[in-house]
Each structure stands twice: as C-alpha cells, then as structure tokens.
C-alpha cells in the first residue's frame, strides 16, 4: 500500500506464477506415479486372496492420486493459479502497458495534418516531432520485457541469434555479427588515470544507512559535472576497516576523455579489463586501501558491470582485495560471474522495463535464487528510457523493500551491517582514460 493506492508489482505475480507452475508440475508428476501403483500387477493378482482388501487398497491409492481432492487435482488447481497469474501479467504487459496515449497523439496529429500544416507548417512539424519522440521514448520500456525472445527471433546476425537462443554471453553485435571485443578494443587499451576530486559530497563522513542510500551516493556522483568514483573507508565497532567503492554509470554516449562513456560501457560488457577497472584499482591504491581488505562494490549501469568485472577478476578479487558484496542496479550482468572460489555475493536489481538491463540478452533468474547471486526484478515503466534507467528510480524501489519479508534479502542486509555504521572517511576521485600529465 502506498498512500491511498495499492502498488502492484507484476513481477511479483510473475514470480508467484512460476512458483505455482513448478509446484503444479511436481504434484501432477507425483499423482501420476501414485496412480501407476494402483494399477500394479501385485495388487490385482493378489485380489483373489482378499478381494475386499484389494478394492480398499485400490480405492485408497486412487483417491490420493486422482480423486477430487487428490494430487492430480491439487496440481491442476495450482496450474490454474499459475495460468491466471500469467494471463494477468501478460495482459498488463501487452495491453495495459501499451503506449496508447502516445500512439493516439501521433494518430491525431496525422489525421489533422492536412489542416494544421496549411495553417502553420513549422509548428505542425515541431508538434509532430514531439509526438513521435514521445512514442519513440515509450516503446523501449514497452518492448523491454520481451527483449530476449525478440532478439533471439529477429536480430540480423545468426551468430548473435544462436548465442541468445542458447542463453550464453553474446560474442558478436546483433546487426553485423562482428566480434564485440574488436569493436571495443580501443576502450580496453586505456591505462586509466585518477586524481583526488574537488567535489566533497555531504555524505563524506557518514556511513550509508541502507543499500538504497548506497545507490543515492551513486546518483549523487552521477549528477556531478565530471566523471567520478568514490572510496569510503568505514571503521566499525570491531576496529576493522572496510571499504565501500561507489561506481557511477555511463555519462556520455559520445566518446570522451573518461571511461564513463558508451565505448567504455560496451568494453566493460564485452570484456573484464577496461579503462574503468584500471581507474578503480588506481583509486584503491591512492586511497591506501590495504592489500586483502574487504570491500563492497556498488554501481549503477556501467558501474555495476565494472563492479562485476572486478569481482570476476582473480587478480583483483582474492588478490588486491576481497570483494564481499557487489550491489548492481540497472546493469546487464546476468552473464557475468565472480572469480571462482571467492565468497563474493552479488545483489542485482533490475527493472524489466529498463532496456539497459537486457543488453546482455540473458534473462535473469526469477526462481531458484541464492544469496550468492540474488536478482530482484521489478516492473516500473516511466515511458522514457532515461527515466526508467535512472539510478534514483532504483534507490526508490529499494526503499520500498525496507520491510521486505524476503529471507534472502534479509541475509544480504545482515551481511552488510558492518558497512552501515562506524567512522567514515571518503575520497572522491576524478577518473580519466589517460593518466594525468
């Protein structure tokens, strides 16, 4: 309940649908197995010795298996629950989420075009551009939940389609089928450079109160006019220094002099060692983070990808430092893994309507999750790709989980406690592709 209205997250319904479907399948399988026992040879041939006992046994088995309150019937009821929920979710996705208003606006504009164009051509064209742009903004959010099957079916590159169909990390671009690594080689090669920033956020000496607040800090850095990362040193009541690394996402689509650009993001998605990851290593050295210290990496978008790249690199995770937890929001990291043998946990927050989270074209899991790799998916479509991807939307959503009953989230929160209190010092770094001259 939020204020006077109920917030229904259709992803919750989707997850419950999956739970009912699996339980229905299990019950039906068990029911049929039990029914088979009723027809077993031994029951029938021995009936001659005790016909009444045989019929009693048959009746008892059949009632438990296929009776009106039996296993198969229970499976059928669960399957119905699952189907109803799926239908509700699909209706929401296909019908209720359809950008009808934007489409009607365009249609109205087209219908009135002969008249309005004759009166004021310039204004008509500007108005048309605005309406088409609104429709164009709304479509990615609408289509995002179907990104994986759509790309598996319609991407021009057959290699890309095969990668998607097999659920493995995509190795080529979707259009021409060129290897991703060759496309981003230039960004891979940047040595990276950091220097202490003049920016001093108001949370410099405060520990974050929650994961949502960690994302607020990412948002704060993203809102600054320059590429930044932050390293917070948190000394808890046990006297141990732990470190929180705050990694903002992409800042520019055009190539820039810092790693927080589109090429840098593509390089991070395709590989593991990029200019951005080198900047993080340099920042840890500059902040005098001791070798083997425990760190939490929190990032949004490209920052989340970089966090996973670092957590998956044995020379960093288990070498330079020990990554206790990765917290990634709005990042396509479903195909990435932490370094083998490390106890690093990953908490991934995704909006299904955020097209960015689908860029790895790997569907994130909704069931059989573990605290080691936990994905929280929700559905909020702002009908604008930028707003739907905004880190503030993710931190708002995490705040809604403050009283979450989810046991896996409770464990993640419990393990983060040492990072949520103690004395804090923060170093904010400017990051660049090249070292400072």
């Amino acid at each position, binding site marked *: 309940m939020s204020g006077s209205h109920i*917030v229904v997250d259709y992803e*919750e319904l989707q997850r419950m649908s999956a*739970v009912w479907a699996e339980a229905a399948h299990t*019950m039906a399988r*068990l029911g049929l197995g039990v029914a088979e026992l009723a027809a077993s040879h*031994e029951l029938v041939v021995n009936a001659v010795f005790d016909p009444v*006992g045989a019929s009693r046994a048959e009746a008892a088995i059949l009632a438990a298996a296929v009776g009106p309150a039996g296993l198969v019937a229970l499976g059928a009821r669960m399957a119905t629950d699952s189907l109803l929920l799926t239908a509700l979710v699909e209706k929401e996705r296909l019908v209720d989420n359809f950008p009808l208003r934007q489409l009607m606006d365009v249609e109205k504009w087209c219908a009135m075009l002969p008249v309005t164009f004759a009166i004021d051509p310039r204004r008509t064209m500007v108005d048309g551009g605005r309406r088409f742009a609104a429709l164009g903004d709304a479509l990615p959010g609408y289509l995002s939940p179907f990104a994986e099957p759509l790309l598996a079916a319609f991407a021009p590159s057959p290699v890309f389609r095969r990668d998607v169909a097999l659920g493995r990390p995509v190795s080529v671009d979707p259009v021409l089928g060129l290897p991703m690594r060759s496309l981003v080689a230039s960004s891979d090669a940047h040595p990276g450079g950091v220097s202490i920033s003049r920016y001093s956020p108001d949370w410099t000496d405060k520990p974050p109160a929650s994961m949502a607040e960690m994302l607020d800090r990412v948002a704060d850095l993203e809102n600054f006019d320059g590429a930044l990362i932050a390293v917070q040193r948190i000394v808890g009541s046990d006297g141990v220094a732990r470190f929180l690394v705050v990694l903002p996402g992409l800042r520019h689509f055009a190539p820039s002099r810092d790693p927080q650009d589109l090429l840098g993001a593509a390089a991070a998605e395709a590989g593991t060692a990029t200019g951005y990851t080198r900047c993080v290593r340099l920042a840890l050295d500059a902040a005098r983070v001791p070798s083997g210290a425990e760190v939490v990496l929190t990032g949004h978008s490209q920052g989340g990808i970089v966090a996973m790249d670092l957590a998956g690199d044995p020379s960093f995770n288990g070498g330079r430092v020990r990554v206790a937890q990765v917290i990634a929001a709005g990042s396509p990291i479903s195909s990435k893994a932490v370094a083998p043998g490390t106890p690093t946990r990953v908490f991934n927050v995704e909006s299904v309507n955020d097209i960015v989270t689908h860029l790895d074209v790997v569907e994130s899991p909704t069931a059989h999750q573990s605290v080691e790799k936990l994905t929280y998916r929700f559905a909020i479509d702002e009908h604008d790709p930028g707003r739907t991807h905004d880190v503030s939307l993710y931190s708002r959503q995490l705040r809604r989980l403050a009283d979450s*009953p989810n046991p896996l989230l409770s464990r993640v929160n419990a393990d983060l406690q040492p990072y949520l209190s103690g004395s804090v010092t923060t170093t904010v770094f400017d990051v660049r592709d090249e070292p400072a001259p």
Partner: protein
Amino acid sequence: MSDLDAIAQELDQRAMQVASASAQLVRAAAEALWTSTAADAFRARIDRRDVECLRLAAELRRAARTVSHYSDEVIAEKARLRRLERDAEHLVVQTAGDAAKVAHMVASWARL
C-alpha cells in the same frame, strides 16, 4: 518383504515427497516475494495449498497402511491355504495307506 509391502513402502515415500514438495513450495514462495503487500496477498493461498499438501501426504500414508493391511491379509490367507493344502495332502497319503492296509487284510482273509 512381499511385493505388496514394497508398494506400501513406495506410498510412504511418495507421502514424504509430497510433504517435502509442500515445504519447497512455502520456501520458494517466500523467496519469490519481495514486497510485504504481495506477501500479504499471497499468504492465505500459500497456507491453504500447504495444508492441502500435508492432508494429501497424510492420505498417502493412510493408503500405505491400507496396502500394508491388505498385504498382511494376503499373507495370512496364503498361509491358511497352504495349511489346508498340507492337510489335504496328509489326508490323501493317510487314506492311501489305510486303503493299502485294508487291501492287504482282504488278501490275507482270501488266502484263509
């Protein structure tokens, strides 16, 4: 162990599987729900399904007991039939022996 006892044991195992599937359902549902609003909305339904699963597990155990009882009856009936068979065989052998004795006696009397 008779084949019927094996069926009863199989039913007991299925009862355990149903109970474990029920526990799995409750756990999976808890892990699938993230917001308290959704959890509240689903709680009653999950509880109801859990109760239904446990009732079915109990029913399967009852069926196992019925089969077990049937197995005991069959074993007892087979034993009774075997006993009757033995008695009948004994009777036949005894009757044959008696008949031989009578024949022998008749033959002896005939010689006299």
